[in-house]
C-alpha cells in the first residue's frame, strides 16, 4: 500500500554491509583478521633468522663485502604476497580513477590469484621436468634456489595479460601499478639473485667474534630455526640469562630476548606464531574456497536439473553428511602426504555438503520462480540461466556461511596439527599447542596460552563476522529480531 511505512530501498549488499558494520563484535573480528593477514604476508620480513644485511668485516673492521641473506631467502610466493599487499591494499583504499572500490578489490584479487596460479603452474612444470616427487611442490613456499625470478616475472606478465584482456578501457591506469610492481620485483630479485644462504650458527658466532656486522629483522628468529641449547626457555628471558647459553653474554645474540619463550625443541614461539598466521589464513581461505566452489557447483546441478541427477548426487551428500567428517579427515590426513596443499584439498573436499545443500534448496526454489522461467522461455542457453540468473540469487546463504566455514577450517587445521597430522616443516599453532603437554608430562604454560589464544581469537573473529553477516542477511532472522 502507498501511505504507510514506505521506505527508500537500499542496495541489498550495501544494506547488509551497513548492518554488519554496526556490530562491534564483527568490526573487532575484522580488525583481528587484518592483523593476522598482515603477519601472514610480512612474517618473513618480521621474524627471520636470516639477517637483512650482512657486512663481512676485515681484521681492522673495514667492510669487505655486503650480503642480503633475507632477500635471497624469500620465495616467489613471499614476494607475490608482499608486493600485492604493499601496493594493492593502499590502491584499493585510496586509489582514484574510474573504478569503484569494489572494482579495485576485484582487480587486486584477480591479479593476485592469477599470479599465484602462474607460480603454481610454473612449479608444476618444474616438478614435471625434474620428477622428484612432492618435495619440489613444496618449493613453492620455500624455494631456496632455482629459477624463481623467472617464475615471478612470468606470473606478473600473466597477471597483466589476464587483467588487460577482459576489460580494455581503464587499462592505462592499471598498468602503472602493475609495471611498478613488476619493476620492483625484478630489482629485488636481481639484488638477491644467486646468493647462497648463510649458516645462522656461523653468523651468530662470527658476530660474537666481530667478524661480521648483521642487521637483523624485528624478531630475529624464524620458524625453522631451533637450537638444542635453548629448549624450554620461559617468555621474556634474555638469551644470556639462560644457563645453557650464558656463554653468549655480551654478544648481540646474548642480548636478545625470547619474548614468548621457546618450545620443546628450542624454536622461538613468537617467530613460529607469526609464521603460522600464514598457514591458518591460507588453509582457511583456500579450503573454504574449494568447498564453496565444489558445493555450489554440485548444489546447482542438483537444484537445477532435479530428477535422477538430484537423486544420485544427494546420496553422495548424505554419505558425507552422516559420517563423522573429522574422523574421515583424520584418516585422510594420516595416510596422505603431510603437505599444506594436500591438507587444503582434503579439508575442502570433505566440507562441501553444507554449501551444496544451501545452493540446491535455493535453486529448487528459484527454478520455479517467474524470472528464471521467463529467461528459459526467452531461449537463453542453460548455462546463461544458471550463472547469470540463478547463481547470484542462490549463492547468498553460502557466502554468509563461508565465514563459519573458514573458522571451522582453522579449527580443523589446528586439530590435525595438534594430532601430529599437520603439514611437515611448517610452523603451526596446533603443533605448538601439542608440545605444551608433550611426552615429559610437564605442562609448559606458554606453549598452551599463546598459540591457544591465537587460535581462539582467529576462530572467534570469523565466527563473529559470520554471525553478523547471517543476522544482516537472513530475512527470517531479521524478522525474528524485531
Amino acid at each position, binding site marked *: *500500500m*502507498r*501511505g*504507510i*511505512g514506505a*521506505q527508500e530501498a537500499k542496495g541489498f549488499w550495501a544494506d547488509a554491509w551497513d548492518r554488519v558494520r554496526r556490530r562491534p563484535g564483527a568490526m573487532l573480528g575484522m580488525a583481528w583478521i587484518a592483523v593476522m593477514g598482515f603477519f601472514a604476508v610480512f612474517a618473513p620480513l618480521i621474524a627471520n633468522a636470516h639477517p637483512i644485511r650482512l657486512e663481512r668485516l676485515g681484521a681492522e673492521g673495514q667492510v669487505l663485502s655486503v650480503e642480503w641473506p633475507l632477500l635471497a631467502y624469500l620465495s616467489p610466493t613471499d614476494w607475490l604476497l608482499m608486493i600485492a599487499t604493499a601496493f594493492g591494499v593502499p590502491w584499493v583504499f585510496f586509489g582514484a580513477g574510474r573504478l569503484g572500490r569494489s572494482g579495485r578489490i576485484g582487480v587486486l584479487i584477480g591479479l593476485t590469484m592469477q599470479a599465484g596460479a602462474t607460480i603454481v603452474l610454473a612449479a608444476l612444470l618444474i616438478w614435471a621436468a625434474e620428477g622428484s616427487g612432492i618435495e619440489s611442490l613444496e618449493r613453492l613456499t620455500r624455494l631456496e634456489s632455482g629459477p624463481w625470478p623467472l617464475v615471478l616475472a612470468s606470473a606478473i606478465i600473466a597477471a597483466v595479460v589476464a587483467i588487460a584482456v577482459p576489460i580494455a578501457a581503464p587499462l592505462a591506469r592499471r598498468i602503472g601499478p602493475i609495471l611498478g610492481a613488476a619493476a620492483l620485483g625484478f630489482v629485488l630479485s636481481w639484488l638477491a639473485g644467486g646468493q647462497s644462504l648463510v649458516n645462522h650458527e656461523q653468523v651468530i658466532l662470527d658476530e660474537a667474534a666481530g667478524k661480521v656486522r648483521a642487521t637483523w629483522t624485528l624478531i630475529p628468529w624464524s620458524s625453522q630455526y631451533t637450537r638444542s641449547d635453548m629448549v624450554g626457555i620461559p617468555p621474556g628471558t634474555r638469551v644470556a640469562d639462560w644457563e645453557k647459553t650464558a656463554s653468549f653474554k655480551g654478544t648481540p645474540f646474548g642480548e636478545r630476548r625470547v619474548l614468548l619463550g621457546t618450545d620443546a625443541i628450542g624454536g622461538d614461539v613468537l617467530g613460529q606464531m607469526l609464521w603460522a598466521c600464514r598457514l591458518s589464513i591460507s588453509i582457511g581461505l583456500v579450503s573454504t574456497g574449494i568447498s564453496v566452489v565444489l558445493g555450489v557447483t554440485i548444489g546447482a546441478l542438483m537444484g537445477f536439473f532435479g530428477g535422477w541427477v538430484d537423486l544420485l548426487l544427494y546420496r553422495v551428500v548424505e554419505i558425507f553428511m552422516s559420517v563423522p567428517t573429522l574422523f574421515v579427515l583424520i584418516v585422510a590426513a594420516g595416510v596422505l602426504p603431510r603437505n599444506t596443499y594436500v591438507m587444503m584439498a582434503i579439508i575442502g573436499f570433505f566440507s562441501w555438503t553444507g554449501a551444496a545443500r544451501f545452493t540446491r534448496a535455493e535453486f529448487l526454489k528459484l527454478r520455479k520462480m517467474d524470472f528464471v522461467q521467463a529467461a528459459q522461455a526467452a531461449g537463453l542457453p542453460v548455462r546463461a540461466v544458471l550463472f547469470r540468473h540463478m547463481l547470484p540469487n542462490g549463492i547468498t546463504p553460502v557466502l554468509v556461511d563461508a565465514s563459519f566455514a573458514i573458522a571451522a577450517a582453522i579449527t580443523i587445521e589446528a586439530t590435525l596439527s595438534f594430532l601430529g597430522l599437520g603439514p611437515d616443516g611448517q610452523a603451526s599453532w596446533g603443533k605448538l599447542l601439542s608440545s605444551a603437554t608433550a611426552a615429559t608430562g610437564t605442562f609448559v604454560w606458554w606453549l598452551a596460552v599463546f598459540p591457544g589464544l591465537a587460535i581462539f581469537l582467529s576462530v572467534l573473529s570469523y565466527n563473529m563476522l559470520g554471525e553478523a553477516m547471517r543476522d544482516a542477511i537472513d530475512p527470517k532472522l*531479521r524478522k525474528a*529480531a*524485531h
Partner: protein
Amino acid sequence: MAAHDTIATTASQPVEPLMSVEDLAVSFDNGSGPRIQAVAGVSMSVYPRQTLAVVGESGCGKSVTAMSSMQLIPRPPGRFDSGRIMFEGRNLLELPEREMLKVRGGKIAMIFQEPMTSLNPVYTIGDQIMEAVLLHQAVSPDEAARIAIKAMADVGIRDPEGRMRAYPHQFSGGMRQRVMIAMALACRPSLLLADEPTTALDVTIQKQILELLRGLQQSTGMGMMLITHNLGVVAENADVVCCMYAGRVVEYAPVTELFDRPLHPYTRGLFRCIPGLSELRNRLVTVEEVVTDPREYQGLRSEAGPVVPWWPFMDQSQRPSLDDPSRPYALVEVSPNRWVGCWRTPEVARHPSRPPRIAPA
C-alpha cells in the same frame, strides 16, 4: 453463565454497545526508519445481535483493529498510541493479562484469516477445540469432548467423533476454517471477531457458515465484527458497515443507506468497481479514477456546515485549510447515523460529533 447474563441485560437496554472502539491508534516499530502507523484513530462499535462489517483495502488496518481488542498485537514492536476499547465497562487495552485470559476465547472469540496455518500442526483437532473449552468452562474432559463434537457438528463437519482424532494436515483449507469457527464458537462468546472467515471457502459452504453464524447471533445474542473484502457478503449479512482506508475510518453507516448512497469518494469508488448486473458498462471504473476526481469532493454538508472528505493523497492545492495541521482528520456525523471521514477544518473542530454508534432497530 456470566456471559449470557450480560448479554441479556444489555440486550434489554439497547442503548449500550457491546464493544466500542474509540479513537484507537496503533503503530509498529520498523527497526530502522519511522514507525508504521497501522491504525491512526479508528472508532466503531458493535451491539449485541448486530453484525458490523469492516471493509477496506488490504493493509488498511482491519486485522490490527480486531487484534488490538484481544491484546494480540505483539508489543514490541507494536504499541497502542491512544484510544480505548470498551467492553463490559472496561478498557480492553488496559486490562491486565490475567483478566485478559478470561476475555480471550471466553467472551470474545476470534477467527483468523489464515486457516492453513492457524491450527497447531502437532495436536489433533479435538485437542485444540477441547483446550479452549477446558480453559473457559468448568467441565470434565469427557464433557469437553462432547461440547467439541457438538461444535464441530454445528459448523457442518461430517463424522465429528472420528475427525476429533485427525490432525490439521489431514483437513482441507475450508475444513480447517470450519474447525477454527467451531473452536471460536465452542465457548459461546458474546462477541465474535471474524477476520475474513469465509475467504477460503467455496460459495455454498460460505453461505452455510454465514447462515450458521447468523443463527447463533439470533439465539445467543452474539455481536459480530465481520472483516471481509466481499461486498456481497456485506450486503447480505451486515447491519452496519465501517469502511477503512490507511488506518482511518472513511465512512460508517447502516448497510442499506451506504449501499444506496455512499458519501465518501473512496466508498463510491469501491461500489462503482462492482460490475453491476443491471447496468451495462463498457468498462470497469477503478477506485483510483473516482478518488482522484476533484468533483467527487464537492457538495458534502453536515450540521457544522460544508465539509471536505478526507483523502491522504488529495492535491495540496485542493485541501481545505485545517484547524490543526498535526490532526488533519476527523470522523464527522454528516447526517443522523451517517459518519464520513473529513478534513478537520475549523468548523468541524468546533462541532465535535459523537462517536459512531448505530444501535440495532
